[in-house]
């Protein structure tokens, strides 16, 4: 009896197309929310960095980033649309991965499962790089090291994805051996902490030295804003996508 009541998802698996369209719609909502966050919060943290850059180039007169191609207003629109685009693309990738691992994720409903996978996505693709290579506002990074920093960023993401897969495999193996939820959780947390430590120690550090004329507050306000924007993006993918997907798969006997 409880078996029946406790099983809100339909027993029939949903088609991938249904999940895909709903998760991508969630990504669109997530991108729009994160885009609004960027206009309200992150752009406010970028502004002092741009002032600093302007003051510098006025003094040096020479190399610049070519910022004049677009006005500030157009760049704000671009920042919003870029965030929306990132939300949609991440949701497309998320949908494929979700389809592949859905039957292994904890949770009885698609809402729960989508939320869990989105939390993993945030940890691996946003939090981990933020710890290894914290975001920098314009004018802070050294243009000469951008290739190295991009490689570090990519290596961090790759290591994170590999670590997440390994932790997932570990959890599956423990479950198959009959280890309970507490034991499995502890093992997963410990394995994740070890993986985090390895990535932080083994992947090379950011080669940049922040210039003396950049106030620490400018950098840290931006870093927190950037992480907040990524948190909104992933929360949106998890909550909006999860809600949309759930509505398609929830069994008729509940509610």
């Amino acid at each position, binding site marked *: 009896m409880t078996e029946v009541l406790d099983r809100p998802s339909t027993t029939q698996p949903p088609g991938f197309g249904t999940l895909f369209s709903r998760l991508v719609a969630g990504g669109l909502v997530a991108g729009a929310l994160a885009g609004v966050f960027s206009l309200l919060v992150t752009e406010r943290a970028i502004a002092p960095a741009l002032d600093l850059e302007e003051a510098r180039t006025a003094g040096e007169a020479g190399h610049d980033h070519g910022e004049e191609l677009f006005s500030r207003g157009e760049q704000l629109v*671009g920042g919003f649309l870029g965030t929306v685009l990132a939300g949609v693309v991440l949701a*497309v990738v998320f949908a494929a991965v979700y389809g592949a691992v859905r039957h292994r994720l904890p949770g009885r409903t698609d809402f729960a499962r989508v939320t869990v996978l989105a939390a993993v996505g945030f940890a691996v693709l946003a939090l981990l790089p933020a710890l290894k290579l914290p975001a920098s506002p314009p004018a802070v990074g050294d243009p000469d090291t951008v290739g190295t920093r991009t490689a570090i960023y990519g290596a961090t993401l790759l290591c994170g994805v590999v670590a997440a897969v390994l932790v997932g495999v570990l959890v599956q193996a423990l479950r198959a051996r009959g280890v309970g939820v507490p034991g499995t959780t502890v093992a997963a947390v410990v394995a994740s902490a070890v993986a985090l430590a390895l990535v932080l120690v083994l992947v090379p550090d950011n080669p940049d030295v922040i210039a003396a004329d950049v106030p620490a507050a400018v950098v840290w306000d931006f870093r927190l804003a950037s992480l907040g924007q990524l948190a909104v993006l992933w929360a949106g993918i998890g909550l909006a996508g999860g809600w949309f997907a759930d509505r398609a798969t929830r069994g008729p006997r509940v509610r």
Partner: protein
Amino acid sequence: MTSVPHAHPATAASRIAVPAWAWALALLGLFGLYLIAQDNGAVLASMGGTAHEFFHDARHSLGMPCH
């Protein structure tokens, strides 16, 4: 696992087939995002730099390395 009602809250959902187009689209999307975020217009010589400038704030705010 089916005979133990309270041991695991996770009921095993049945497996879904992910079609090849979904993986292809995912890779294509990531590649497109990478192209847009990158500075050099090597691949999209004419519009690569322009797209980069337009989406430049998003590149910074989403935590990707830049200037």
